[in-house]
């Protein structure tokens, strides 16, 4: 286990290093002058040149990268031009919001997807089964931006059930979580259904039925428990997927998460902030994938963490 963790940590470091090099190179080969973006259109050319010097942008590329990495290793990702604050502070203050949204979205997927999948498996080929299929199709085919605006208009503006975006209590979380999570409900339903249909045909289920247990006890206590493992894997994989997936939801709902921060950084050509959001997000994704692997081994003893 310890050997496994060390190996995973080392390979993660390589991934992070690679990501930092690629992002850095991409940004610096863009024909954009960050000093001009900082100074605005009306600043004189001499003023821009002085600012470029102050920012260290006139140093050779390798030197800039070296300084960047040296500082990053100490947790200092530089100073955002666009927000006028340290990048680490800016990104870390937004992470909790994004995580809250991601977990709420996964919650929506599970709470709606699992029962629907169980029902579809129990009443195979019935109208419920059909509904699950249609929902899966609708979920993947409705763009979150459109869905978000639709929800806002209908449930917040017309009906006044929820606030028009922003953060606050639970009522602020409902619409964004639904918008982000609904796309996955159908997937979870399909996955639960096929996994459960397989389990329901297995020998241990026949044994349970033979013991004279009620059908619902058989399904919920025996079959579902065994069908759960692929669902846990899927939920784990959802975290990195949602890091990118909630960006649009954050934009629509004025949700102050890290995704919106990244978009603002890109639109403002704010190089340190782009680097910071990308690298710190990558760190989160890498860390969450390690946690998921460990969690899987814990849930299913058949899985071993090979060093």
């Amino acid at each position, binding site marked *: 286990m310890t050997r496994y963790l060390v190996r995973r940590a080392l390979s993660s470091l390589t991934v992070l290093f690679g990501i930092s090099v690629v992002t850095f190179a991409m940004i610096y080969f*863009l*024909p954009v*002058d960050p000093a*001009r*973006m*900082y100074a*605005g*259109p*009306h*600043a*004189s*050319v*001499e*003023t*821009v040149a*002085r*600012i470029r*010097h*102050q*920012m260290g942008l006139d140093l050779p590329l390798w030197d800039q990268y070296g300084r960047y990495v040296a500082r990053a290793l100490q947790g200092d990702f530089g*100073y955002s031009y666009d*927000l*006028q*604050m340290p990048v680490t502070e*800016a990104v870390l*203050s*937004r992470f909790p919001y994004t995580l809250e949204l991601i977990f709420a979205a996964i919650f929506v997927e599970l*709470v*709606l997807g699992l029962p629907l999948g169980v029902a579809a498996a129990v009443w195979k080929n019935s109208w419920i089964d059909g509904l699950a299929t*249609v*929902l899966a199709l*609708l979920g993947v085919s409705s763009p979150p931006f459109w869905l978000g*605006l639709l*929800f806002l208009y209908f449930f*917040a*503006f017309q009906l*006044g*059930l929820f*606030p*028009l*975006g*922003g*953060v*606050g209590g*639970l*009522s*602020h979380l*409902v619409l964004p*979580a639904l918008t982000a999570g*609904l796309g996955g*409900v159908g997937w979870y339903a399909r996955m639960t259904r096929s996994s459960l249909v397989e389990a329901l045909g297995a020998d241990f289920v026949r044994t349970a039925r033979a013991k004279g247990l009620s059908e619902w006890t058989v399904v919920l206590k025996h079959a579902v428990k065994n069908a759960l493992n692929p669902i846990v894997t899927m939920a784990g994989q959802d975290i990195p997927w949602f890091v990118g997936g909630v960006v649009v939801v954050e*934009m*629509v709902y*004025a*949700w*102050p998460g890290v995704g*919106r921060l990244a978009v*603002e950084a890109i*639109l403002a*050509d704010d190089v340190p902030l782009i680097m910071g959001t990308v690298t710190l997000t990558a760190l989160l994704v890498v860390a969450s994938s390690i946690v998921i692997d460990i969690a899987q081994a814990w849930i299913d003893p058949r899985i071993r963490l090979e060093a």
Partner: protein
Amino acid sequence: MLGRMRRAFGYLAFAGVLSVVLAACGGTSLGPAGESPSGSEAPSGQAPAAKKVFTIAYKDDLATLDPAVGYDWTNWPAEKMVFDGLLDYDDTTNLVPQLAESLPEVSPDATVYTFHLRHGVKFQNGRELTADDVAYSITRVLDPATKSPGAGFYMGIQGAQDFVAGKADHVSGIEVLDPYTIRFTLSSPDVTFGNKMALNFAFVVPKEEVEKYGADFGHHPVGTGPFTFVSWTPGQELVFKKNPDYFKPGVPKLDEVHIQVGVEPEVALLRLEKGEIDMMGDPIPTADLARVLSDPAWQDRITKAPQVSTIYIAINTRVKPFTDVRVRQALNMAIDKDRVIKLLGGQGTVANQILPPLMPGYDPDYQGYPYDPAKAKQLLAEAGYPDGFETTMDCLDVDPQPKICQSFQQDLAQIGIKLDIKTLESGTLIADAGTEGKVPLVWSGGLAWIQDYPDPDDFYSPILGCGSAVPGGWNWAWYCNQDLEAKEQKAIGMTDREARLQAYREIFRALMDDAVWVPVYNGEYIIAHGANVVGKPTDFAHPEHTIRYEQLDLK
């Protein structure tokens, strides 16, 4: 048939989604459906005695409230809440004293400016403002360590060059004569120095607070202004409250100002319609503009005000075939500007010259080039291009700019020019246009020059003068005329206002004769706000400050 099927499918999709949502609300503990949103502290409909809380929403977060650093249209009006300058503007473009007790005494050659300060003006930390604070604030803008984008405005003060180069520890042209008198000596005549002292960069900051917060002063601003800064939650909201000790009687009228950030314009419009906010900071989304403008219910919730800006096509005078003035003139006659206004939903007026109508020096007698494709084609033939040519135009990738560029494409096709449109994001476009010989034509829509201060020189030196026709500069026509340069040098020191404006009229007439731009339209602000907001059009959209929060009131 297909259409009907698609619509049926749309309803089905909606019904499906709806059922899931209703199931969620009813079947789980996600959120009690009947609960009313706690966030809707509707400012409208409050009793008259209630606190007057004004809320505005923007899409982008503000960068900073440090007046030496901020340089865009979202943070300027917010800075104006917390700080004051020595001078300010009235409802239009005339300078009036603010922290100064009167307009400055100016030497006959416009090189020495003496300001007398008001007595008893206090910073929000309780300390009285003195001339030392003014000297400190301007010196701070010049200090390279501040990285102020506005440093260039004050480089004309004597000794500024030496100070910036590190050869002097203070700026010799800034002298504090007594606690209430300060004198600026310039190295060459400049009648626009008063305007420069009314810019946000010249707002007065207290040294002890700047030193206390260092680089983070922009998030903890302290000034003398009508509102005191309360809090800033990045990505969410900024809060300001009334400064009860403000030196001007009667203002501000509001008790609190809340600036919401991170709100997409589509959502901000919904919040406004619902009465959750009092004003939209961003323009109304193009898709909603026609509906809002034609709806009688919106009539008292819309304020229009002209913007002191000209949106233009810059013609690169150093790229063939635009080196020939006849080709540039042909372009001026080929563009159908009325169609552009239509594409903008009426948000603007046709321009026939470089200076916008509100700018002193604008020439109401000048007719400009007529829209005459036949004449344009003839000019092209005379220049040796009877069959036209191919060229490219850079265009911002933000709606509605690409549509406008396509309209130009049609116009130019009529006279035989095949236009290739390159749609770019702003950083790339600016870098491209600022590279010599790279881009033949640039459409300035979305990036256009809006005045820093109401003086015609602000439309010459930074965008059409020789000093800006350099890499990274903003002179996208790459035009440099030594003859005009000499005239401008003379004009900037003229103290007789009428003679001076006449001199600028001649300069801008010459620029139009040389056809360095196609001036297409002058911008207009269309502001959406609550029916209960009281203010003059220039309080919603002031030519210099955009929003004047201290003048606004709620019914």
